[in-house]
C-alpha cells in the first residue's frame, strides 16, 4: 500500500521535527522582536519571513539594514550567509531529483537547516524508500516548523515593543548566531574557518560599506578549504 506508507512517512517527518520547535520557535520570535525594533511594519516582516524563509539570512539583512549598509552589500552578504542552502539543495538532488519540476520547486523553497538535516539522515538510514515516501517525509519535516516560523514572527512582533531595555536584546542576535556556529565546528577545518573569519572581520571593520563582512567570510571559507586539504594530505579523516 504505497499511499499508506507515504502517509506514515509524512507523520514520521512531523514527529522527527518536534525538537526543532525549540529552535525555530525562539528564533522566529526574536526575528519579530528585532524587526519591530528596526521599524518594520507587520506586513513587511511577514512578507519577509514568508517569502525569504531563511532565518540567518533574514537576521543578517536586518542587522545590515540597521547599520545603513548599501542595498547591494545587504543582498550580497545575506545571500552569502545563505550559500549553505545551495549545498543542501545539491545534496538532496540524488534523492529527490527525479520528482516533477514543480515539486522540486516547492522542495527548494522548503530547504532549510532542519528539513535538510532530518531528511538526508532518514534517506541514508532507509535507502529502500520510494520517491513519494521521501517527498512525504521531507514535507512532514516542514509541516509544523514552517507555520511555526510565520506565526512566531507575528507573535514576536506583537511582543516586541513591550520588552524593556534591561533585557539587553541588542545582544540576542550575536548569542543566537554563536549558538548556531558552536555545533557546526565539527572538524579542525571548521574551527580554522571560523577563527580566520573572526580575525579578518575585526581587522576589516573600518572598510566602508560593510564590505569587511564579505572579505572576512571569503577569507574564512578559503582557510577552511585549505585546512581541509592539508588535513586530508596528512591522512586525517574529515
Amino acid at each position: 500500500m504505497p499511499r499508506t506508507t507515504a502517509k506514515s512517512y509524512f507523520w514520521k517527518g512531523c514527529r522527527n521535527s518536534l525538537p526543532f520547535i525549540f529552535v525555530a520557535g525562539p528564533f522566529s520570535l526574536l526575528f519579530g522582536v528585532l524587526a519591530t525594533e528596526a521599524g518594520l511594519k507587520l506586513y513587511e516582516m511577514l512578507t519577509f519571513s514568508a517569502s525569504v524563509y531563511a532565518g540567518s539570512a533574514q537576521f543578517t539583512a536586518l542587522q545590515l539594514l540597521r547599520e545603513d549598509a548599501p542595498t547591494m552589500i545587504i543582498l550580497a552578504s545575506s545571500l552569502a550567509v545563505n550559500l549553505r542552502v545551495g549545498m543542501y539543495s545539491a545534496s538532496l538532488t540524488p534523492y529527490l531529483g527525479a520528482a516533477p519540476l514543480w515539486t522540486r520547486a516547492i522542495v527548494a523553497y522548503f530547504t532549510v537547516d532542519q528539513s535538510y538535516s532530518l531528511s538526508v539522515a532518514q534517506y541514508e538510514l532507509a535507502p529502500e524508500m520510494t520517491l513519494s515516501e521521501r517527498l512525504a517525509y521531507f514535507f512532514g519535516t516542514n509541516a509544523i516548523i514552517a507555520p511555526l516560523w510565520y506565526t512566531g514572527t507575528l507573535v514576536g512582533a506583537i511582543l516586541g515593543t513591550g520588552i524593556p531595555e534591561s533585557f539587553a536584546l541588542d545582544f540576542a542576535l550575536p548569542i543566537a548566531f554563536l549558538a548556531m556556529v558552536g555545533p557546526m565546528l565539527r572538524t579542525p577545518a571548521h574551527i580554522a574557518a571560523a577563527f580566520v573569519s573572526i580575525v579578518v572581520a575585526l581587522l576589516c571593520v573600518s572598510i566602508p560599506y560593510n564590505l569587511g563582512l564579505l572579505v572576512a567570510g571569503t577569507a574564512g571559507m578559503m582557510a577552511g578549504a585549505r585546512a581541509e586539504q592539508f588535513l586530508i594530505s596528512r591522512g586525517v579523516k574529515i
Partner: protein
Amino acid sequence: MNDVATSATGFETSTLWIVILGLALGSFALRFFFIGIVGDRPLPEWLLRHLRYTAVAMLPALVAPLVVWPSATGGEPDLPRMAAAAVTLAVGYVTKNVLMAIGSGAVTLYALLYLVGV
C-alpha cells in the same frame, strides 16, 4: 528630507522592499539551482570544498564586531557581552546543543550585567 518614507531607524522603505524581494528571489535561486537545474551532474570539488565552510565563516564574521564593539555601549568593549559570547560559543561547541548554548550565554550576560551594574 521628509519626502521619502523612512522607518524608525532611518533606512528607506524602498530599500527594505528591494532587500526583501532580492533576498526572496536570491534565496530561492540558491535553493533551486542544484535540485532544479544542475540535477545530479557532479560539481567541481574545489567549489564544494569552499561551500562547506560558508556558514562557519560568514556567521562569526557578522557577529565578531558586534561582540567586541557593541552598539548598546556606544562601541565601548564590554565584559558581560564578551564573556557571554565566549560562553555561548564554547557551550555550543562542547554540547552540540543550540538551546543549551543560548541559555548559558543569556545567563552569563544577565548575571554579569547585574554584577557590573551593582
